[in-house]
């Protein structure tokens, strides 16, 4: 029973174990099934991948094969046993193989070199080289092979390895006969030209891109005294070039690398250390691939030319310096040359006054005319040299162009009254504004041209036409001046000549009409100085027109048809008395006119003593005291008056000093004067001073009647304008006074000079000097001042005589101008329409 139970348990365990085992087995089987399934899938995808790869590989191979087949070179691919794997048609063609390339597959190539060697110019070398290449198994590209028939092949050998395993090799052959021939031809022609150049005294040198000498040609070496071997491999700049020229070469090197050629000049150091100047034509050397590999320079020895050029340059510089010095000299000579000439002319004048015989008079007249002509000539030469030395400059100032032209025309008209010539001025009505430019130069230019017109015109008409060339509002405004005449004319072939210095139409003209031949040259230069131009149109026997174009700036200021007005001043001065101490008649006249106009009662003393004596007698409300006077000067008189009891010791005294020098002013105050006024003073200045010291200062102004008058430009018009304004009556009186008094006084200078009475000369000069300023002869006033100083401080007979000649000369000219102005003024104020100002 026990045993049965045991057995039963055992069986139960066995059965349970079997079932368990079966369950596990089933589980495992299932797992296995899935694993299998997975494996199958994996396998499937692997197969597909392999198929794809294989397809790609075949396609790739086919592409390569087709590439090789169609390559423009012959290709032969051999395996490691030298069996043909692939060949293309080109290969068969190159080596005359009469089969299809596909047929060659598998052919043994071990004997191919031997078979084909006859095709090559050097068969043995061909075979040797093939063996060598196969032995070395190294890539060798682009070997050139000469064929027996003259063709040239280019060969590349490519060994094929996979890792370290040698799998075979590839031959590539191409026929480069044309290329090589073209290259050869090019090289030949280059050689030819190089040889030509070498034979032409031109030295060639080739350098690489670093500037290292690659090829020094024999001629180049010979030029410098080097052997080619001494130069080859050297840096060209280091051995040949002075360091200071390095930047030139560096720039050239940059240009070469950019492929540009260039010509330049540098000195080159020869072997013996001397310099050779070379003109170098440099060009880049460009290889067949278009890359710059270096440059070639063609050297031409220009040492001689350089030396010559330098010498020329130096002599040119010397010549220019000499010319400059000459110009400076001439420009500075003005005074020195004119002075003795003035002496000659002056002496001639004096001699005429010594009652010479008729014959002597004729000689003197010739002497005087010649001297005057010489002076004109010298003036012209000096003007010209001044222009050329750049000493003459165009000044810009505002002026009335219309008035200038009209005045000029008028003055010509006056001169031409004796001739049957009409003078006209035609002015563009568009010129309504003051312009900015140089009026003096314009005046001189037009005067010169009008002078010519006058000279060469016996009858008919001369004149000025003025026309605006530019559009309105255009800047600058170009004005054309045409100075025309109906004179003898200029032959066409001389039109250019007349503007040249010292040229006249012909010698005959010079004899007949005189002149220096400089006038038009100066005129042209003056025109050009202002940026303008001049040209001439002329017909022989009919007339001449000079056209001048000049630029002016429009100031926008409307030109007054009349000269500027001066304020009319009125002073309430009832019962006031002024004493004026003045020894100069002109100054007395000037002050007299002004004070009368202002209705101020006044009295004159002719020197200091008289003033003092008058102050003893009467009371004055103001004293105007000249400083330098005979008998008793202003300082002394002032002190004397101040010392007087009663009457005038408190009277204000105003010094009238010749200059505003501080020393004089201080002296005046020290002497007890209250104020000073420097001469020449303007009416307004005097008026203000009087107002200051006389206790009534109501000033009334009214507009005076406008008068149309322009003073001669040779006078100090600015000064005259200030002094007289539009008060022409006053001006007329002053000019009249000058004519009445001054020439008489001037005549007494000569005897004093002859008697060597220097202090008297100085005093006389001092006295008459201001009179000249009053009529606008400022230049003469200055000359007299110089002479006065000279007579006072360092009297020298010869010097003073020379100075006087000059003064005399200025005086002669000046008095003529004054006479003329006097006539003009007289004409105007005697006109019934003229109303003198109150």
């Amino acid at each position, binding site marked *: 029973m026990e045993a049965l139970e*045991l057995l039963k*348990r*055992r069986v139960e*365990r066995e059965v*349970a*174990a*079997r079932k*368990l*085992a079966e369950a*596990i*087995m089933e589980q*495992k089987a299932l797992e296995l099934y899935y694993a299998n399934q997975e494996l199958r899938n994996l396998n499937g995808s692997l197969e597909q991948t392999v198929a794809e790869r294989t397809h790609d590989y075949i396609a790739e191979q086919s592409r390569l094969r087709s590439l090789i087949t169609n390559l423009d070179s012959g290709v032969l691919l051999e395996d490691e046993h030298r069996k043909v794997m692939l060949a293309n048609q080109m290969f068969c063609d190159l080596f005359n193989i009469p089969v299809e390339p596909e047929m060659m597959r598998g052919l043994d190539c071990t004997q191919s070199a031997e078979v084909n060697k006859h095709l090559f110019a050097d068969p043995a070398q061909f075979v040797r080289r093939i063996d060598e290449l196969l032995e070395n198994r190294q890539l060798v590209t682009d070997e050139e092979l000469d064929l027996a028939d003259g063709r040239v092949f280019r060969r590349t050998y490519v060994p094929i390895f996979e890792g370290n395993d040698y799998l075979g090799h590839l031959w590539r052959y191409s026929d480069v006969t044309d290329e090589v021939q073209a290259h050869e031809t090019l090289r030949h022609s280059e050689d030819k030209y190089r040889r030509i150049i070498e034979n032409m005294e031109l030295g060639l040198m080739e350098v690489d891109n670093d500037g290292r000498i690659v090829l020094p040609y024999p001629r180049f070496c010979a030029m410098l005294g080097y052997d080619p071997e001494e130069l080859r491999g050297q840096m060209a700049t280091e051995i040949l070039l002075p360091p200071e020229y390095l930047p030139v070469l560096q720039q050239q090197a940059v240009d070469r690398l950019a492929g540009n050629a260039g010509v330049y000049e540098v000195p080159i150091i020869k072997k013996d250390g001397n310099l050779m100047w070379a003109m170098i034509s440099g060009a880049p050397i460009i290889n067949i691939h278009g890359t710059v590999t270096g440059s070639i320079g063609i050297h031409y020895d220009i040492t001689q030319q350089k030396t010559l050029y330098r010498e020329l340059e130096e002599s040119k510089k010397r010549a220019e310096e000499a010319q400059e010095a000459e110009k400076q000299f001439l420009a500075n000579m003005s005074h020195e040359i004119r002075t003795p000439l003035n002496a000659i002319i002056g002496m001639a004048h004096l001699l005429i006054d010594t009652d010479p015989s008729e014959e002597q008079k004729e000689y003197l007249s010739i002497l005087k005319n010649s001297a005057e002509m010489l002076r004109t000539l010298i003036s012209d030469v000096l003007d010209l040299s001044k222009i050329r030395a750049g000493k003459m400059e165009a000044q810009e100032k505002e002026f009335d162009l219309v008035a200038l032209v009209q005045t000029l025309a008028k003055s010509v008209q006056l001169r031409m009254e004796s001739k049957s010539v009409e003078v006209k001025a035609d002015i563009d009505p568009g010129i309504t504004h003051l312009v900015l430019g140089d009026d003096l130069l314009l005046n001189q230019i037009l005067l010169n041209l009008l002078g010519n017109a006058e000279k060469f015109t016996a009858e008919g008409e001369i004149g000025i036409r003025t026309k605006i060339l530019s559009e309105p509002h255009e800047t600058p405004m170009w004005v054309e001046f045409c100075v025309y005449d109906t004179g003898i004319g200029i032959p066409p072939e001389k039109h250019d000549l007349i503007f040249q210095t010292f040229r006249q139409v012909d010698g005959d003209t010079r004899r007949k009409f005189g002149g220096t031949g400089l006038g038009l040259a100066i005129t042209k230069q003056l025109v050009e100085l202002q940026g303008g131009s001049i040209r001439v149109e002329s017909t022989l026997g009919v007339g001449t027109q000079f056209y001048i174009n000049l630029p002016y700036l429009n100031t926008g200021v409307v030109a007054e048809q009349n000269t500027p007005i001066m304020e009319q001043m009125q002073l309430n001065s009832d019962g006031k008395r002024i004493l004026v101490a003045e020894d100069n008649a002109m100054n007395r006249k000037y002050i007299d006119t002004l004070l009368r106009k202002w209705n101020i009662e006044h009295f004159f003393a002719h020197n200091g003593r008289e003033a003092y004596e008058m102050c003893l007698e009467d009371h004055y409300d103001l004293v105007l005291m000249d400083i330098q006077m005979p008998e008793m000067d202003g300082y002394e008189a002032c002190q004397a008056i101040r010392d007087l009891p009663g009457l005038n010791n408190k009277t204000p005294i105003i010094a009238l000093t010749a200059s505003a020098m501080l020393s004089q002013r201080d002296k005046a105050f020290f002497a007890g004067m209250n104020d000073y006024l420097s001469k020449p003073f303007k009416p307004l200045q005097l008026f203000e001073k009087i107002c200051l010291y006389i206790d009534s200062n109501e000033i009334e102004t009214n507009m005076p009647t406008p008068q149309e008058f322009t003073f001669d430009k040779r006078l100090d018009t600015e000064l005259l304008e200030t002094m007289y304004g539009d008060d022409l009556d006053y001006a007329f009186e002053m000019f009249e006074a000058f004519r009445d008094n001054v020439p008489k006084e001037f005549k007494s200078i000569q005897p004093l000079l002859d008697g060597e009475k220097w202090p008297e000369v100085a005093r006389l000069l001092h006295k008459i000097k201001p009179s000249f300023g009053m009529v606008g002869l400022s230049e003469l006033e200055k000359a007299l001042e110089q002479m006065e100083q000279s007579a006072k401080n360092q009297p020298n007979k010869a010097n003073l005589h020379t100075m006087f000649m000059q003064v005399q000369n200025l005086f002669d000219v000046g008095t003529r101008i004054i006479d003329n102005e006097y006539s003009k003024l007289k004409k105007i104020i005697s006109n019934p329409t003229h109303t003198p100002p109150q």
Partner: protein
Amino acid sequence: MKGIVFTEFLNLVEAKFGYEMVDQIITESNLPSKGIYTNIGTYEHSEIVQLVTALSKHTNIPVPDLLKIYGIHFFPILGNGYSHFLTGVKSGFELLESIEHYIHVEVIKLYPDAELPRFENRRLSPNVLEMIYHSKRKMADFAEGLMRSAFDHFGEKVEIERENLEADGSSVRFTITQI
């Protein structure tokens, strides 16, 4: 633990002591598997410990001796079942030295869930092999039985010295000297 260890153990018990002993130790032990084992199954390690302990109680043979005996008995079974591990192996040392880096690697491939002891081998001299056993199962006796049986298989005579490196027997040094 692989099923073969259990089935072969119970086969050995039945051969030596009869199925009654087998039935007795299964019945006495508290086995999750209820003593139903197949070669291809995997079972708790504690079950073999319980079975061996029960056997020891009934036979009065100490557990280490039982395990050593079982090891000696088990080697030829492994040798038959997995003869390819012995192919080309010429000595016991060679076999032992191949356990860690060859046999166990292959076992893991077949039974990814197998928990195997780890060995550190060192040849102290050509005929002395030091082998250190590491296992939480503490079955160095079973291992020694296998070793001895292996050397018998190759007809080799060895002396095996044992030294516990850890008191609980989880680390044991075997020093094997060929005689």
